[in-house]
């Protein structure tokens, strides 16, 4: 009994380890598309991401202070007035692929279902992800929309024409197998 348990644990553990892909330099870009002259957009190139192909699990970790804007004042307002990075320094997403095909040599349009934890609010989301294996690395890309109002981020009326409630998010990650 004990033997079977240990063997099965070892087997499954080794399988799990062999199929994990990770990066610390994934990119997240967001845009608040408004007619204003100065559009609000920022890029974070220090996003951590892990995908486990054995069970389809996926995790993203996004440090708020690593979002960089072209305009310094926008960055200050982003941290101070909107995402409150002092209190909520990071956002995380954890979830899993609804159905993960065995063949990833072609680009696959998949759906990830999981929980977004951002600005102290947890929200269940379904996010489309394009996934492909290229030269031994796992390439994941996604475009989706977030609503500020879903995450308790209030936009004052004064800046409503400069800052949209609807935020377009673009994610690009190239993950390498963990040895």
């Amino acid at each position, binding site marked *: 009994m004990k033997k079977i348990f240990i063997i099965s644990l070892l087997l499954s553990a080794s399988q799990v380890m062999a199929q994990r892909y990770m990066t610390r330099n994934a990119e997240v870009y967001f845009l608040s598309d408004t007619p204003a002259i100065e559009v609000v957009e920022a890029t974070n190139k220090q996003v951590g991401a*892990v995908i486990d192909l054995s069970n389809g699990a996926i*995790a993203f970790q996004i440090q708020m202070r690593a979002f960089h804007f*072209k305009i310094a004042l926008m960055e200050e307002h982003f941290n101070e*007035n909107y995402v409150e990075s002092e209190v909520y320094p990071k956002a995380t997403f954890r979830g899993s692929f609804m159905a993960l095909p065995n063949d990833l040599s072609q680009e696959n349009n998949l759906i990830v279902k999981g929980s977004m934890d951002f600005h102290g609010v947890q929200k269940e989301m379904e996010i489309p992800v394009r996934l492909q294996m290229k030269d031994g690395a796992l390439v994941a890309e996604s475009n989706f929309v977030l609503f500020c109002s879903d995450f308790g981020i209030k936009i004052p009326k*004064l800046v409503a024409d400069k800052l949209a409630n609807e935020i377009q998010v673009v994610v690009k990650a190239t993950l390498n197998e963990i040895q």
Partner: protein
Amino acid sequence: MRILFLFTFIFGAQLFAQDDLFSLLDDDSSLQEVSAIFKGTRVINGQSVELPAKGVLQFVIEHRFGTLNSGAYELWGIDQSTMRMSLDYGLFDGLAIGVARNSFQKTFEASLKTSLLKQKRTSGSPISITAYAATFLNSFRWVKPERENLFSSRLSYAYQLMLARKFNQSLSLQLTPSYIHRNLVETKAMNNDYMAMGIGGRYKITKRVSFNAEYFYQFNRPVEDFTNSLSLGFDIETGGHVFQLHITNSQGMFERAFIGETTGKWSEGDIYFGFNISRVFTLSRD
């Protein structure tokens, strides 16, 4: 028994796998620099640890009206005003240069401000430190043109260290050890050099409004005619502008004047109402 084992194994492994994914990613949020210890580059009169970002030009207009106790005839000071205009530019990350003109004693100003240390979120440095140096040029016509007047007599200098900590989202405090040198003083009773310690802070009432206070204690005070500077005010942020409204017993808006030559007494109602308006322009972005 077997079922129990199987059960814990299946679910345990799955849970383990989920949390483990995050354990693979480093969480370096504790080392992040805190943002915006103060809204503006000035607490009220004195400099704050903040400075313009690289490529940012900051234009500040400041006014101090007459004293509130000057009565209805002067509209409680509104009829008289002194002003200061300044341009500050972020040359690099953590280095800014500035020029200014004060109508008070027709003073020109040139300054250098540099960030020495940045406060981190939870580990790393607990405070931010910024150094400030300014030269002031009094451009009044000579009082006695018949005597020999040296250009150097017009100059005075201020050197300050700003040590600040953002305790939480609302509260930031700053200590400002200051050293001031005047090449020429008016009377023998006055010192050419003096030291002062400033203490200032802000408390955010809402995300865009904060209450600020600032006090400069002057050591080795030369004569009794001068008092320490105490200022109270509000910062109001509206997008690209920061409005600072305040009352203070100092009429001068540059360091030598408000730290060393404040004459107003709060107890006698010599209080000046004033404001600073700052606007930033992003000249280069990369």
